[in-house]
């Protein structure tokens, strides 16, 4: 029982981070239908920009804000300079995906070239162990869970109650009709890429205070982001949250019965079964 509770706690911590990763990719995919493979690069980029600012002896919080700002800009730039010109040429989904993959690989390699392959820790965040009965976790974990949920709640409030949020939802449900009522979908796309990149930057920050950054951290995060979205349901951001929590908890609890190497396989198995039984995802709308 003690082990179960401990693993469940760990699952909730991981799941919260996965949920944040899920919405960060999901808001982009749901709105623009771009298989944004370069999201993994933005993740790594955010991590390293925060690091670079701390190396320039900027305190942690301003470094975080500056890092998030540059990551947001980078996300917008990818949309504006790479995807948008291809959309204008009405390039296929496949070619935009291949471009995204190119950005991911080139960007990740560039970070490797500039900063080397070593792991880079982000220091300065107070870490203490907290024990509640048999369950232990750290202040970093607590902070992660809190921040993830605050950000997710803010995002949903933004989408539901602001004009910009409603415009985003209009474009994601029907881009063509959104244009008829005077919404410039190109600007909404850039905005959405900015928001998604800001969110993934926060996720990158949270994992870098926990584990040091390396040039290839982005791939794992990317993988989780889109598996979460497809698992939870395309077109429904709530689905990504649900998918994230399920993955986090499943991946943590599976340790009770299987060695850790099978973690990835369990995630894949869940995904496979969901696609087989309910291709539109757990909360998704039926695909015509």
């Amino acid at each position, binding site marked *: 029982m003690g082990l179960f509770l401990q693993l469940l706690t760990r699952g909730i911590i991981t799941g919260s981070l996965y949920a944040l990763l899920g919405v960060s990719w999901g808001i982009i995919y749901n709105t623009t239908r771009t298989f944004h493979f370069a999201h993994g690069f933005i993740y790594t980029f955010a991590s390293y920009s925060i690091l670079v600012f701390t190396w320039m002896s900027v305190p942690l919080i301003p470094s975080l804000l500056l890092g998030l700002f540059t990551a947001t800009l980078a996300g917008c730039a990818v949309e504006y300079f790479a995807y948008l010109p291809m959309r204008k040429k009405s390039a296929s989904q*496949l070619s935009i995906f291949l471009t995204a993959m190119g950005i991911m690989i080139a960007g*990740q390699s560039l970070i490797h070239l500039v900063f080397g392959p070593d792991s880079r820790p982000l220091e300065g965040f107070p870490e203490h162990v907290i024990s509640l009965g048999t369950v232990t976790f750290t202040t970093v974990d607590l902070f992660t869970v809190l921040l993830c949920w605050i950000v997710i709640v803010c995002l949903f409030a933004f989408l539901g109650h602001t004009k910009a949020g409603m415009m985003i939802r209009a474009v994601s449900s029907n881009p063509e009709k959104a244009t008829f009522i005077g919404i410039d979908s190109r600007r909404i796309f850039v905005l959405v890429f900015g928001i998604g990149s800001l969110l993934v930057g926060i996720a990158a920050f949270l994992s870098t205070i926990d584990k040091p950054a390396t040039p290839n951290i982005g791939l794992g995060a990317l993988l989780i982001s889109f598996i979460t979205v497809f698992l939870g349901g395309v077109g429904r951001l709530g689905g990504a949250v649900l998918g994230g929590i399920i993955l986090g908890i499943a991946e943590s609890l599976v340790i009770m019965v299987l060695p850790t190497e099978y973690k990835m396989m369990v995630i894949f198995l869940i995904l496979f079964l969901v696609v087989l039984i309910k291709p539109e995802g757990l909360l998704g709308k039926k695909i015509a």
Partner: protein
Amino acid sequence: MEYLAHTLNLAFIFVILTVSLNLILGYGGMASMAHAAFFCIGGYISAIVTMNLGCNFLIGVLTAIIATAAVGGALSAPFIKVQEEYLILFTIAFQMVVYHLMLSLYNITGGDSGIFGVPAASLFGYTADTPARFLPFMAAFLFIVYYVAFKITKSPFGRVLKGIREDEKAVSSLGKNVIKFKVIIFMVGTGIAAGAGGVFAHYTRFISPTIGSLDQSILIIAMVVLGGTANLGGSALGAFLLIIIPEVLNFLPGASDLIVPLRGFIYGALLIFFMRFRPEGLIPEYFHLRSRKRTLPGARTGKQPADDCLHFSMTSEEKMFNRTGPILEVKNLSKSFGGLRAVDNFFMSLDKGKITALVGPNGCGKTTAFNLVTGFLKPDKGQIHFAGKEITNLPAYKMPHIGIARSWQDIRIFQGMTVMDNLLLARQSQAGESVIRLFIMPWRVRREEEENIKKAFFYLSSMGLAEKGSEIARNLSYAEQKLLAIARLLATEAEILLLDEPSSGVDPNWVKQFMQIIRGLAASGKTICIVEHNLDLVRGVSDTVYFMAEGQKIAQGTAEQLMADPKLGEIYFGV
């Protein structure tokens, strides 16, 4: 010498991998991110089979090909079915899982140290124990792969793939199961990759997970994109160029630590550059040139004046239906989208050899009714019977085969294909559309193809397009494209033809010509149903008119009867 032979062997392996991925990515239009994983799996299978059974390496390689293709097909099919992004999702996840498993299943794969002592390839007492001695095997394998890929892509099967890349819906409206074609080309590609893995394991006598990483998969994708998608020669070029890059980088002083990221950066930058500025790759797809040569002989022999062909002869299939009265009956048909009842309790029956028109104001459910009858939408309620048999839930791709074919309001001809290929794609049950029959009965495929070219030419001439057979469809005028769409519809030889707004966007002269064509078709025994806004056309051709409003049939009769009714006029024009 051995170094050169080794580099050549390595380059050949990558050419094989690139060609096989090009089948999936270039010809199938699907991104597989797991090509290296399949390659590695093939290596392990062949290594384990030959080491445990002590059999010849060929048996190991064959087992690898068959097992991997079967597993790859079974796992990918549910994902391919949903949407194109889902295959990306599946293959990345699969790639990661396989890589992790190969590292962690020590008992089977030997973990990260891999399996040593894989038996060398030998055949008839010739043992390939050095790179130079292996070269003949590698060259033979490359030749076989090229032959298979060439044969598949230039066959009727390849033609369907090309159609799928242009317009999936149009392909299924011509009676092809799009998912089946995609899964099969995926299986062929992964099977070849696995075979390459097997050959590679017997060549290096060693197999480990390092060659099966995501980076390798991405490298192969970069090779395909660089060389040119849907072009086999380009794949060889792409593979050779990208093999050379790291060799050249080796000569850079002090760059040894940086080779991996530098290579990654170059591949990534090449991908971005090519997708943006030269998406067709170094060597673009020369599809048109080849098909032009192929169709010319048929065009010369079968030349006939256009007017004779308006009288269509009864084919053997049609004789099955030489009955009169209703041939297609629709009862109680209903379909809702959310809260909107698009089609509500709709009844219709089409009489053999008659022309029926569906008219009504915009948004009255005509097109939805059409999509329900042709299987593109599933009804919530109701039945459809065709020649006495229930066909209510039959998928769209089965419709032309049983004798129901449709055209599209927005034409949906294959713009990038020749006029002749547009028609050939519409022919039903072609042996050449099966990869297996392509290889075991090539003579039958060839004979059928000649037959189909003749038939296609007949339908082309009936629309006055005989001279245009080798033209690329997008170069035709709009009116000609509309005629081509009809010729393509006829080439399915379906009994019932459903035409969606055939006269939209063309001038009155065309409409006159079209009315003549459609009357000729009905006289030859075809059953026709049109959705149409042009009331002159409706009056000119239809035997029966159904008037629809808000999803329901509200009147039925001859065109004159309905047009005399002032109430219908009000609904129609909204006054």
